[in-house]
């Protein structure tokens, strides 16, 4: 009996194996369009099929009874339905689009992002290195983007009518104090950090996230590379010095170090300078980076930068050129940046860190001297939470402690004088990104800040949205309030000044299509509580108040095309700016001296395969800038001549690991004038003598050889061009 039963059940089993059902159906999306390539299958089996060109699927299965039918397709929500298979079955699916937080609509108002090169970015890190006239300086390269102002005697980023100090820089989320190196008076500075370090650059010209505070105009957000690609040593020999660097990569960690020495005196000996240098600028710099993976997704980074520099030059008095002031600028700088990020569970992410900066400036004017030491510690933690498919929350807190100490010797003072001030800023922010669909995203949030100078609280709401008008184009709007502690030259007199404030309104339209980008952005910016003082009593704290205000409005246009001409990439920026301020020592509202109404730049890069070289040029134009003509009528009514510069560069790939690089700024040798300095007293004609603020030399020539050594010399330097 038992045998027979076994036999029978085996027979049934084998019969069962041959009873096949056919499952068929159609796959469509919500708009009734057919979907091709969706994977339909019975859970836990191989049985299934993909939808064909008509959206139909069909497969046979030997499964019977209650089964789960699964459909999955990229970009759509996976669906599971329970079915009862008792024979052939037909089931039609309607797929619902999944929200794509990463590659879908993003908020672009005010921002020039360059994350990984796979996103729809406008400027890639590599572009910074290869921009003619920028000589690998981040700020100079960003100065070819719309919204920036050419301020040739400064070298800093001046954004949409804001001063240079209104742009703050963050590395891995942490603020960098003294982002720019020291420079002689009225000569351009350079940013301290090389673009090679960074994998991502986000340059916001306004309306940025509530995560960032203490910047009235602009945030430059830099992200260091996750890890070097391989073990490598680099040697650079340049007309201004040289450097060596080395990177060692392990499975889960890496170490990189770099030592650089620069000294411009040999160059100044060959090429005559307009300035009377006693000691040409020289600097020694060391940097170090360590990275360690933590767990599966975590990453810890430690970055240290040390720099010591020196320069001395003689400057003649405006009224009496034989009266020489020996001006010395010495600087010691250290920046330490610890950052950590990790993913906590499925929905949470954490990012945080501590940075410390010490900047020591020694300025000497003959026997008079001012030493300024600034120390700052920034600690921050940010959590992100993918609360739902459509909602992402971000919130965090930070603390910024800063101490500034000034020691003044001479200047007719009876004894050494010390001024010290401390500042503490505590900030907390919360921000929510909500995707209404793959077409519309809204970001709303706010930032609460406590500032100890003087003790006060500020609330800064921020809101922005992005709306996809077509697959390649989008509209963005942004609004936000921003505040910033007044600058040190004001705080050194009066430490009871309140924060200065700005309000941004931005509307932008952008099309990115197949290697071409077009963007137009209009903005209005309102300044409030700007510090004003009576120039007659500038050392009296009581002469200072927060009664100033101002506005800036205009529009920026950007066009980039890397598609139309083979091996050619070019971009064109135009900015229109209308601005006035009544602040500092201004008697009434006037256009500030660092602004120009029209700024234009054209960056062109052409790779010529035949000669294995990339050539590039940058043409910049800025309309006349105001200056306060002491011999004229009114305030800030003088106008300089317009600014023009044509810079050229060429990189030649000698071998896969050796590059020759050369660049010349101001090829045409135009004598650009940025403004005028005036003497103290009227001359015999009843006029004040004046001296033009110009370029330190008509041109700057740079030559360099860059050598990379790796195992088997496989490193392709190509993208470093």
């Amino acid at each position, binding site marked *: 009996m038992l*045998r027979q039963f*076994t*036999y029978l059940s*085996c027979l049934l*089993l*084998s019969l069962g194996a041959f009873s096949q059902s056919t499952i068929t159906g159609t796959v469509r999306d919500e708009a009734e369009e057919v979907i*091709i*390539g969706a*994977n339909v*299958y019975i859970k*836990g*089996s*191989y*049985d*299934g*099929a*993909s939808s*064909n*060109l008509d959206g139909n699927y069909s497969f046979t299965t030997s499964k019977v009874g209650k089964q789960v039918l699964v459909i999955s397709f*990229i970009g759509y929500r996976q669906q599971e339905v329970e079915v009862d298979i008792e024979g052939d079955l037909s089931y039609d699916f309607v797929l619902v689009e999944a929200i794509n937080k990463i590659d879908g609509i993003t908020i672009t108002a005010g921002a020039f992002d360059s994350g990984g*090169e*796979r996103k729809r970015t406008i400027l*890639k890190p*590599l572009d910074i290195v290869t921009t003619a006239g920028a000589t690998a300086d981040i700020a100079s390269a960003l100065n070819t983007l719309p919204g920036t102002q050419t301020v040739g005697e400064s070298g800093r980023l001046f954004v949409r009518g804001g001063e240079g100090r209104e742009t703050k820089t963050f590395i891995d989320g942490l603020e960098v104090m003294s982002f720019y190196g020291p420079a002689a008076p009225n000569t351009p500075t350079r940013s301290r950090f090389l673009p090679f370090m960074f994998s991502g650059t986000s340059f916001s010209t306004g309306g940025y996230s509530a995560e960032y505070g203490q910047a009235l105009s602009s945030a430059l957000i830099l992200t260091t590379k996750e890890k070097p*690609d*391989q073990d490598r040593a680099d040697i650079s020999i340049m007309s201004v010095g040289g450097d060596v660097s080395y990177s060692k990569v392990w499975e889960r960690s890496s170490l990189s170090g770099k030592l650089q020495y620069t000294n411009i005196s040999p160059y100044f000996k060959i090429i005559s300078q307009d300035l009377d240098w006693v000691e040409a600028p020289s600097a020694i710099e060391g940097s170090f980076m360590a990275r360690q993976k933590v767990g599966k997704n975590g990453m810890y980074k430690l970055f240290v930068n040390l720099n010591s520099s020196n320069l001395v030059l003689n400057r003649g008095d405006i009224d009496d050129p034989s009266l020489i002031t020996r001006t010395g600028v010495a600087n010691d700088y250290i920046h330490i940046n610890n950052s950590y990020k990790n993913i906590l569970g499925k929905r949470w992410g954490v990012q945080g860190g501590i940075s410390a900066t010490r900047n020591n400036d020694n300025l000497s004017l003959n026997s008079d001297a001012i030493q300024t030491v600034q120390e700052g510690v920034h600690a921050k933690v940010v959590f992100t939470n993918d609360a739902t498919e459509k909602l992402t929350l971000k919130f965090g807190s930070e603390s910024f402690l800063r101490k500034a100490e000034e020691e003044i010797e001479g200047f007719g003072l009876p004894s050494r004088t010390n001024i010290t001030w401390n500042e503490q800023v505590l900030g907390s922010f919360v921000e929510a990104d909500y995707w209404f669909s793959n077409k519309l995203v809204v970001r709303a949030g706010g930032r609460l800040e406590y500032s100890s100078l003087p003790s006060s609280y500020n609330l800064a709401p921020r809101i922005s949205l992005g709306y996809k008008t077509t697959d390649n184009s989008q509209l963005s709007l942004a609004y936000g309030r921003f505040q910033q502690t007044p600058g040190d030259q004001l705080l050194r007199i009066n430490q009871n000044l309140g924060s200065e404030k700005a309000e941004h309104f931005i509307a932008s339209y952008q099309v990115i299509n*197949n290697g071409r980008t077009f963007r137009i952005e209009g903005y209005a910016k309102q300044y409030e509580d700007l510090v004003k003082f009576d120039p007659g009593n500038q050392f009296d704290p009581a002469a200072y108040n927060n009664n100033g205000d101002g506005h800036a409005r205009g529009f920026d246009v950007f066009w980039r095309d*890397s598609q139309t001409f083979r091996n050619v*990439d070019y971009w064109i920026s135009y900015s229109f700016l209308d601005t006035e301020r009544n602040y500092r020592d201004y008697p009434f509202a006037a256009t500030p001296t660092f602004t120009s109404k029209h700024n234009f730049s054209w960056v062109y890069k052409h*790779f010529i395969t035949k000669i*294995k070289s990339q050539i590039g040029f940058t043409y910049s134009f800025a309309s006349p800038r105001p200056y306060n003509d002491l011999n004229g009528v009114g305030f800030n009514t003088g106008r300089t001549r317009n600014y023009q510069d044509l810079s050229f560069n060429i990189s030649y*790939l000698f*071998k*896969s690991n050796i590059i020759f690089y050369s660049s010349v700024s101001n090829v045409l040798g135009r004598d650009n004038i940025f403004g005028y300095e005036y003497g103290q007293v009227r001359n015999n004609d009843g006029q004040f003598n004046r001296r033009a603020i110009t370029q330190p030399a008509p041109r700057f020539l740079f030559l360099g050889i860059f050598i990379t050594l790796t195992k088997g010399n*496989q*490193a*392709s330097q*190509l*993208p*470093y061009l």
Partner: protein
Amino acid sequence: MKTLVFVFVMTASLAFGSEYEEAMKAGIKDLYAARSLNEYQQVASKFERIASVESAQWLPRYYAGYAYVIMSSLDSVAENKDKYLDLSKQQIDKAAEIEPNNSELLALEGFNHMIRVSIDPGSRGQEYSGLSMQALNKAVAIDSENPRALYLLARMSYGTAQFFGGSTEESCQMLEKSLQLFETKQPASEIAPAWGKNQALGMKNICQ
């Protein structure tokens, strides 16, 4: 009767054991016969279905990853190219979790990065050609007789040498070695990776 039951159970278990292999064989046959994007999608989906059941097998994900790389090179829309490479990379990563340090998987990863470079060499060269070389070198280091890894490495290094005007001799020797191995070395099993010979032969023309 006992014997009959025993034989039946044996056959059934054998049949059951080879259901995976049979499905793989059918999939591989379809894969090598595929020409259009739609055909490749069908077969990639099939391997994904097998992979969803056979969580301990790396080969279904390997083949799905391979199909997506081919789809990326077939599609003419730049954004789709990236999408397929992403899908491929997902499959490769999941397979590598099952089977770490596998020469075939590393070779496929190198292939994936190589195609990524070709979409936009100017801006991706630095990152992805480095990653590609890294993966391919590792693939060869693990199995110096993996003809696919050798062929892909030859192709990458040939391109680099040619661009910089260096010698392509070494690359061509490597290709020669891979061609020999395609002739002499039998795949580890019926379902082990066996593609690449035609592509390698295609490259032979440039080397001559």
